[in-house]
């Protein structure tokens, strides 16, 4: 279902005209209200009135996560704190968290964008949304919550964790939609099975999953285990929170980025050069509807590409491909670049392997080593060592053939690898460099 018929199907020229107008307003806003941006723009000799076309976007400087940290906590806000109705922050596992603020209007627009996203995923008014994203400083919980309410659905603000209770509620309340991280969804699926809850006892229809990179093969595993449509949603707190981009249920191929609120670009992460549509690189987003903390050309560090071909759902907003990973998640093993999601894809395609894995990177005698731990499933378990040995060797060979690196695959007992209630941490890097 299309939530905002007019804006979501706006012809490209009209959409671009709207983008330009909003971009001009945003540049003017930050130039006048944020000393950090004034300094940055003066340095490259760009005045707000120089933005005459969307092409002028590339004259603007980038904003990085470090810039947000340097201006911690409220240095990039355009409005005084008394007009800020809410703040969120990133987890900040390394150093200070990055803080973002929202005006009343920002919350309003966010709710609309999220409602739009939910509708694109096939959610509507009569649905019961079990919102298992964490509530708190993390934007996931409240973002999905406000969007669900705006859409007119019934929201269960259960937050993450408390898995058995989640399942009881899912069954008793008849939840039709789950919003959660893909890794937590897997854990829920496994617990549903262990508790002996039958698929027919659940009304679950759609999962709207995000907040971490996941693979197409993981989607297949989730859809098969739960008998639902699993939809990929994208967002990041610096830009808004959830609801920046989402797959439509019609195509389930690429995520529509809401271009009336964001301008996406793909750049070469090394040189900063803008790449043409279709090429893979780092996603850069300029917010053109944000009031409290608009960001110019924010470097998301997420790797994707823009799909410019029209989508069969009728929305005119371009799509980004499923996020491959974050530049900071990329592992460099003996000079080979590899994303955990690539290992995930491969594992999910191997029969007999459970969708639970861990990657351990270490350095032994100055040589990088990578160990992949996977759980064996009952289906494949054989009473003969050679069959298991063959499975292990097959995965090692596949990784070697595809990515050119030798890894050690270790078969683990079921349910021994860590399960996650929020974002998964599947990589342990023990290298001390």
């Amino acid at each position: 279902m299309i939530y905002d018929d007019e804006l979501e199907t706006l012809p490209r020229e009209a959409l671009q005209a709207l983008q330009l107008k909003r971009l001009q307003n945003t540049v003017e806003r930050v130039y006048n209200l944020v000393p950090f941006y004034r300094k940055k723009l003066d340095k490259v000799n760009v005045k707000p009135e120089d933005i005459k076309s969307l092409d002028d976007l590339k004259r603007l400087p980038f904003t990085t996560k470090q810039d947000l940290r340097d201006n911690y906590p409220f240095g990039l806000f355009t409005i005084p704190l008394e007009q800020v109705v809410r703040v969120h922050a990133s987890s900040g596992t390394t150093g200070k968290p990055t803080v973002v603020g929202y005006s009343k209007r920002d919350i309003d627009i966010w709710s609309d964008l999220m409602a739009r996203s939910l509708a694109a995923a096939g959610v509507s008014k009569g649905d019961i949304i079990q919102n298992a994203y964490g509530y708190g400083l993390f934007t996931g919980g409240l973002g999905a919550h406000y969007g669900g309410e705006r859409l007119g659905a019934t929201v269960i603000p259960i937050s993450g964790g408390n898995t058995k209770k989640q399942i009881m509620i899912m069954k008793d309340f008849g939840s039709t939609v789950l919003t959660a991280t893909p890794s937590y969804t897997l854990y829920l699926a496994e617990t549903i099975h262990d508790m002996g809850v039958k698929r027919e006892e659940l009304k679950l229809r759609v999962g709207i999953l995000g907040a971490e990179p996941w693979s197409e093969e993981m989607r297949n595993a989730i859809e098969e285990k739960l008998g639902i449509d699993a939809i990929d949603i994208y967002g990041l707190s610096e830009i808004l929170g959830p609801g920046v981009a989402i797959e439509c249920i019609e195509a389930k191929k690429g995520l529509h980025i809401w271009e009336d609120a964001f301008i996406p670009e793909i750049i070469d992460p090394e040189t900063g050069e803008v790449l043409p549509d279709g090429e893979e690189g780092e996603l850069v987003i300029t917010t053109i509807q944000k009031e409290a903390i608009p960001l110019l050309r924010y470097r998301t560090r997420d790797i994707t590409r823009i799909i410019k071909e029209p989508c069969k759902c009728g929305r005119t907003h371009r799509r980004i491909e499923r996020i491959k990973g974050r530049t900071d998640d990329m592992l460099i093993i003996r000079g080979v670049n590899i994303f955990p999601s690539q290992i995930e894809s491969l594992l999910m395609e191997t029969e007999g392997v459970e969708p639970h894995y861990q990657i351990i990177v270490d350095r032994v005698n100055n040589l990088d080593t990578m160990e992949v731990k996977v759980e064996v499933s009952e289906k494949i378990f054989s009473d003969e060592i050679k069959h298991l040995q063959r499975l292990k060797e097959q995965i090692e060979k596949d990784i070697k053939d595809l990515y050119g690196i030798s890894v050690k695959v270790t078969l683990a007992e079921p349910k021994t690898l860590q399960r996650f209630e929020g974002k998964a941490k599947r990589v342990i890097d023990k290298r001390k460099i």
Partner: protein
Amino acid sequence: MKRIRQISVFVENRPGRLLEVVDLLGKHNINIKALSLADSSDFGIVRLVVKGVDEAIRVLKENGFTVSETAIIACMIDDKPGSLASILRTLAENQINIEYMYGFASPVEGKAVMVFKFSETEKAQEILKEHNIKMLSQEEIREI
């Protein structure tokens, strides 16, 4: 055809893991008649013949172990020098391949019990029968 039920359990190679399997069965009063441990560098398979197969499978699964069941053959032979060689010779002469074998833990007066997993179970059984080698049924296992 006389077959007996063997339970296989997947275990990672780490201290105490075999103990957990055996301890669990002990606590549920399940008697282990035969056991063998096959290992590779980082995992192993514990193979068990027990009294109370269904109960053992249930208990192990409830405690998170990956378990499978295999039909194997138990042969009773004389407990004297050369009797194992004689049965193996018979099998070899008939081109029967043994995947694995191990012996029973508890002694039977004057007899020994060996369990076998063959690549071709049916064929192996016929040959054993032809040569009058005594095979045990699940009921007979329970009694020894």
